[in-house]
Every structure is written in structure tokens, then in C-alpha cells.
């Protein structure tokens, strides 16, 4: 049985933990609102970019000499996985669920005899992947969302990937990130960046029945594509980073909310035990005094 003092110390410590978690929750909520605004503001651009590229890609994909970023280089032996995670922990299952999906993909690719390379965005993703796939990690990018996600950062990543692709360092590139749905739900999404996934696009275009028209191109198709493709790469990464940061804050907010609640429950329970123990001690002392008096 814990002594009264032990219980008091314990309660005090849980209380201070609760203060920290509730403060973190507030901070995450404030950051979430901003991150969510940014993520939602970036969606229209990315969507329209995809639509435009989709209609261009359909025309170009069958042709000879279609840009490699669009059509791929004909092989799919080396896969590059970009795993977007966060730099800081204490955000519930956020990093774990992204890494779990990435890991599943890696295992599958390895089983199929492919070579896998990993580019980590965020310290926590690297920390988790390093344990089993240390030799596959090409590089880790840190602090991309500090103080906030800018387009420049995404553009740099995009350029870097494009360079690696041109140098033949990989054949297929897939991006893993958590799409923000709400503070409670984040959906881990795998998006193929290179080659540009045309099939899905085509299906959605025919489904909506739009974009049937044949476009005129100015100056010409290949020139537009060579500008549009790297741009699209940067945009998709930008979107992913924004979604990721919104998801991270959402996940942290939920996690900290839970932690605060759990701490509250624990305090209640400990206080109850504390009071019981206190009463028991008093009763015991009384009995001792009374029985002592009776014995006289």
C-alpha cells in the first residue's frame, strides 16, 4: 500500500503532466487551424493542375518521345519512396501509420525483386525506418514545415527528384503522406509521382464527361509539357507537405486531448485512493487510542 506522501507526489506529477498535455493540445489546435487553411487553399491549384496535365497527358502518352517524367523510362526496377512524416513526436499514431503503409510497400517491392530507395521527409519517419532499412535511406529532409510549408521548399525537393530521375537513379517514384480529412481522421495516401499516373486521371475525366475537347497548344505541346511536368511535381509535393502538416497537428491535437482526459481520470482515481487511505489511517489511529484507553 502506497503511503500518503507517495500518493500526494503522484497526484502532483500527474497534474503537471495534464497541464503540459492540455497546453500542447491548445497549441496544436491553433496550428491546426492555420495548417488546415493553407492545405485547403492549395487544393484548387493542385486539382486544376492535375486536370490540365491529365488532358495533356492523354494526348501525349502514346506518342514517341513523350517526356520521360510523364511516360516513365520504360523500366520499373528501382523504386524511390518519399515518406512524409513529422519532425516531432507526441502526435499519436500519425507517423506510425504512414511508416506502416510505407513499410508494407517496401516489403512487397523487395519480395518482387525490386530495388528500393527511401527519401525521408521528417525526422520521425527516418527514426522508424532506420531500424530495418538503414541502407536504403538516401537522405532525410528535416524541418520542412518550419516555420511553415513554403512552395520554395517543395520546389527544391521536386527539382532534386527530377535531377535524380534524369540521372537514372530510380525508375518509379511514389510519395507517402497523410491526407487531412478531419482532426480525427487522416488518410495515408500513396501517390505515384513519376511516371505521372495517367490511367486514374483518364477514368475520372470520362466519368465527369468533361474535357473531351481537343486542345490547341501555345507555343506547342512538348514545350508546355516540359514546363508543366516539373511544376506539377513541385505542386504535388507542396500539396502533400501541406496536407501532412495539417494532419500532424490534427493527430497531435487528438492525441493530446486523449492524454489530457486520461490524466484527468487518473487524478480522480488517485484522489479517491488518497482519501480512502487517509481515512483508513485516521480510523486506525482512533482504534489504537480507544483500545489503549480501554486497556487501562
Amino acid at each position, binding site marked *: 500500500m502506497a503511503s500518503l506522501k507517495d500518493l500526494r507526489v503522484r497526484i502532483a506529477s500527474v497534474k503537471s503532466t495534464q497541464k503540459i498535455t492540455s497546453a500542447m493540445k491548445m497549441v496544436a489546435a491553433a496550428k491546426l487551424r492555420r495548417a488546415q487553411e493553407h492545405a485547403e487553399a492549395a487544393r484548387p*491549384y493542385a486539382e486544376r493542375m492535375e486536370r490540365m496535365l491529365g488532358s495533356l497527358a492523354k494526348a501525349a502518352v502514346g506518342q514517341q518521345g513523350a517526356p520521360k517524367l510523364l511516360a516513365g523510362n520504360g523500366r520499373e526496377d528501382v523504386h524511390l519512396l518519399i515518406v512524409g512524416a513529422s519532425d516531432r513526436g507526441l502526435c499519436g499514431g500519425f507517423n506510425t501509420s504512414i511508416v506502416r503503409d510505407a513499410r508494407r510497400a517496401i516489403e512487397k517491392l523487395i519480395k518482387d525483386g525490386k530495388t528500393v530507395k527511401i527519401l525521408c521527409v521528417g525526422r520521425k519517419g527516418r527514426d522508424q525506418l532506420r531500424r530495418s532499412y538503414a541502407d536504403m535511406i538516401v537522405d532525410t529532409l528535416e524541418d520542412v514545415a518550419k516555420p511553415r510549408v513554403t512552395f520554395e521548399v517543395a520546389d527544391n525537393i521536386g527539382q532534386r527528384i527530377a535531377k535524380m530521375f534524369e540521372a537514372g537513379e530510380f525508375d518509379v517514384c511514389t510519395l507517402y503522406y497523410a491526407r487531412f480529412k478531419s482532426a480525427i481522421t487522416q488518410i495515408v495516401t500513396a501517390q505515384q509521382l513519376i511516371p505521372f499516373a495517367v490511367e486514374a486521371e483518364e477514368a475520372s475525366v470520362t466519368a465527369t464527361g468533361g*474535357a473531351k475537347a481537343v486542345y490547341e*497548344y501555345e507555343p506547342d505541346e512538348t514545350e508546355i509539357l516540359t514546363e508543366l511536368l516539373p511544376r506539377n511535381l513541385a505542386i504535388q509535393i507542396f500539396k502533400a507537405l501541406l496536407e501532412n502538416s495539417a494532419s500532424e497537428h490534427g493527430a497531435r491535437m487528438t492525441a493530446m486531448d486523449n492524454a489530457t482526459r486520461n490524466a484527468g481520470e487518473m487524478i480522480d482515481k488517485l484522489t479517491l485512493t488518497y482519501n480512502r487511505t487517509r481515512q483508513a489511517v485516521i480510523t486506525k489511529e482512533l482504534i489504537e487510542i480507544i483500545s489503549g484507553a480501554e486497556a487501562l
Partner: protein
Amino acid sequence: MADDRVEFELVSPERLLLSEEVEMVVVPGTDGDFGVLPRHTPMISTVRPGVIRVYEKGAVKESIFVAGGFAEVTPERCTVLADQAMPVAEIDRAAAERQLQDAREDLADAKDESERMAAEKAVTVAETMLQIGQA
């Protein structure tokens, strides 16, 4: 949607700047400015740094600076994906001059072809911004 209106959308990576039905919009394409009226031929064009003008009742209603990007035109819609965009009235001359200086320095420091091209582009953007800001 009314038949004699164009649905015009201007988006930059950060946000959706404008989304409304307009009479006509003039976009600075790489091969020259083009005006978009309803039932325009479908077309995709690159955009050079310049000013997008939105016309309403035959007069310019809004002028927006864009630093390049892409435009997609369909018979009922005109979408401009701008790298960077801001209303002409909000151009900060001092900032633009600083940007021009930085870009020129970058150009001088450029080590390889792609860096040089990026810097050249930045110089053009800053120059255009200054010109427009002056007018």
C-alpha cells in the same frame, strides 16, 4: 451559367485568388496576349510574366500581376495557374527592386545551366513587376 460570360479562375499555389464570371479576360501568353471570350477554342498555353486584365462592360475592372504559369481555356472556362500572383495595386516597388537585385546576383553566381535559367527567369519576373508597378 449565362451564355455570354466566361468563368474565370486564377489560382496560385498558395490560394485561389479569383473565381468569378466575367465578360472577358486578357491573358499574357508566351506567344502574345490573348483575350478570352465565351466559346473560345479549347487551348492550353504557357503564361509569361505580365498583367491579366479582367474586363467588365468594355472596361478594365481588375489588373492582376502574374509571374508566369499556365492557362487552360475551354469554351466556358478560363483557368490560369499562376506561379505567383498579386493585384497590380499591391505591388511594392521597393520589394520588387530588392527582388531584382537578388535575382541579378543569383544570375552572376549561377554555376550551371539550370541555375542560370532559373535566375534569368527571376530577373525577368522582377523587371516586369517593376515596370508594371511604375506605370
